[in-house]
């Protein structure tokens, strides 16, 4: 379904864009229908940049992004819009996705305006309630509220509900769990697993290996923009080959083992 073919991203940085920074270097992997692929790495390793390129929120410097057989990496206009109807993203910091001067549910109504202009009010209402229910939000508690009146977890679930309003084929989930508390986390993870069983492909970006392990079929380990290890999740976790993967594994806090602190 989605195939990344040696994609790279070079940012121009510094005063007047005089220097170049290679954030992503020749990364290749694929996500199939009903497959969850974890993209794991430290902060700054290029995970979000890859996610943003897949969502076409960042331009692709080099390489191809092939979706259902078509290179979408240079799509614009109507073709880009059609692509976005099938591929949506949810991000880590729920606050930045909201404009504080508008009510939070504006993000839902905007989907209606741009993708479902013909849908009747009652059909829309049902659709809304279904997707809010899927993320366990009580419409009465969240609709009509401003962002500052809702918790981070509520705002995050609202954004997942927003993605679910579209019949998407691929979800890019960029660290969506890290701001949520434990029981909400597992609900959202299980929700993603159910969506996967219904055929949704998920690019699950995380630095938390336990979350990646719980959910994903395959894992891609990213270090400084490059893939250092890739394979079936169970293998990567049982038998990590790269020292970096081992270090990431050792940092995960666990309840049956305490860190040995120097």
């Amino acid at each position, binding site marked *: 379904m989605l195939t990344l073919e040696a994609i790279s991203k070079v940012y121009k940085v510094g005063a007047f864009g005089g220097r170049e920074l290679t954030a992503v270097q020749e990364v290749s992997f694929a996500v199939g229908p009903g497959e969850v692929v974890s993209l794991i790495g430290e*902060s700054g390793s290029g995970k979000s940049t890859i996610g943003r390129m897949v969502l076409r929120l960042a331009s692709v410097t080099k390489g191809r992004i092939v979706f259902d057989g078509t290179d979408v990496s240079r799509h614009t206009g109507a073709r880009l819009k059609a692509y976005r109807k099938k591929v949506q993203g949810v991000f880590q910091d729920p606050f930045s996705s909201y404009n504080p001067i508008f009510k939070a549910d504006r993000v839902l109504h905007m989907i209606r305006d741009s993708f479902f202009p013909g849908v009747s009010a009652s059909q829309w209402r049902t659709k809304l309630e279904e997707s809010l229910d899927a993320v366990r939000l009580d419409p009465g508690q969240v609709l009509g509220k401003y962002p500052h009146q809702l918790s981070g977890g509520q705002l995050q679930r609202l954004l997942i509900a927003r993605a679910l309003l579209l019949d998407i084929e691929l979800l890019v989930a960029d660290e969506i769990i890290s701001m949520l508390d434990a029981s909400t986390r597992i609900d959202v993870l299980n929700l993603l697993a159910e969506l996967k069983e219904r055929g949704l492909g998920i690019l699950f970006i995380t630095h938390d290996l336990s979350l990646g392990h719980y959910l994903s079929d395959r894992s891609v380990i990213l270090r400084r923009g490059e893939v250092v290890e890739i394979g079936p999740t169970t293998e990567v976790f049982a038998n990590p080959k790269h020292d970096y993967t081992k270090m990431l594994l050792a940092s995960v806090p666990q*309840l049956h083992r305490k860190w040995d602190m120097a």
Partner: protein
Amino acid sequence: MGLRVENLRVYYRTMRGDVKALDGATFEVADGEIMGLAGESGCGKSTLSKSLIRLDSRMKLVAGSVELDGKMLPLTDHEAMNKYRFAEVSLIPQYAMSALNPTRKIGKMIAELVRSRGFSYRVLLPELERRLALVGLSPDVLNNYPIELSGGMKQRTVMVLSTLLDPSLLIADEVTSALDVSTQRAVAETLVQFRDRGFVKSMIVVTHDLSLVYQIADTIMVMYAGKLAEKAPADKVVKEPRHPYTRLLISSLPEVGVRYAERRLVGIPGRPPGLLDPPSGCRFRDRCPLAFDKCAEEPPFVEVERGHEVACWKAM
């Protein structure tokens, strides 16, 4: 001597009535103790944290008192609290990293804060630089703008700043939740180091990440819907929790090794009650698998064994 909180009730005034975000908390944090504070989003962790520092205009102190090292904190008196804030009790607020003023260099910001509290930046500078070095930061960060630092660097800078005057108590609200695992670990270990070096005497580490706080905390306190549910040594809370909510919370944690395909973890069905008009009796009642008649009455938060307090009729 540490911190003693007595029946603390802090509500938010809203158009529709009072939100009972913190509804009667009684607990102590001893000198040298790192207490983890955990619980679902919205249970009142940040409200408790803010209450010990600064009640904003919408928060009202309904009852209770807070004693730090034997002195009562004048919670409702903004002027009088100035003497304690930052110097005796310091808070790293949730989202502190994103709240840093992007147009001010770090050093300038620290200088302004320190001066506003009546201290000389020049006098404190050598100690500031020494502590930055201790957490692996070069003094150059003082000349950086916040956006030029990574999340972990920003968080360590905020930690150094918040403890510069050696406060008795540091409250760290979700300081690791936006960081990656290796940085999280470094920041968490820095907290322990600050305690061990005596930069702070005791600490409240607020988090929803029980596995993380378990690594560094001596004790863990769990809140539910504005009330205290359980407090005990960290090992007890994790290995022998007595409150049904704590048990469910712990069993919902994904550990490395658990996979959806093999063992599906379950969250806690239902939602916490709204705090505008919370139900009487045990607030966990409608989600609790052990609930029985008696739970219509509110369970007191009592010691069930030495150092282990629980608010549940089934745990007594």
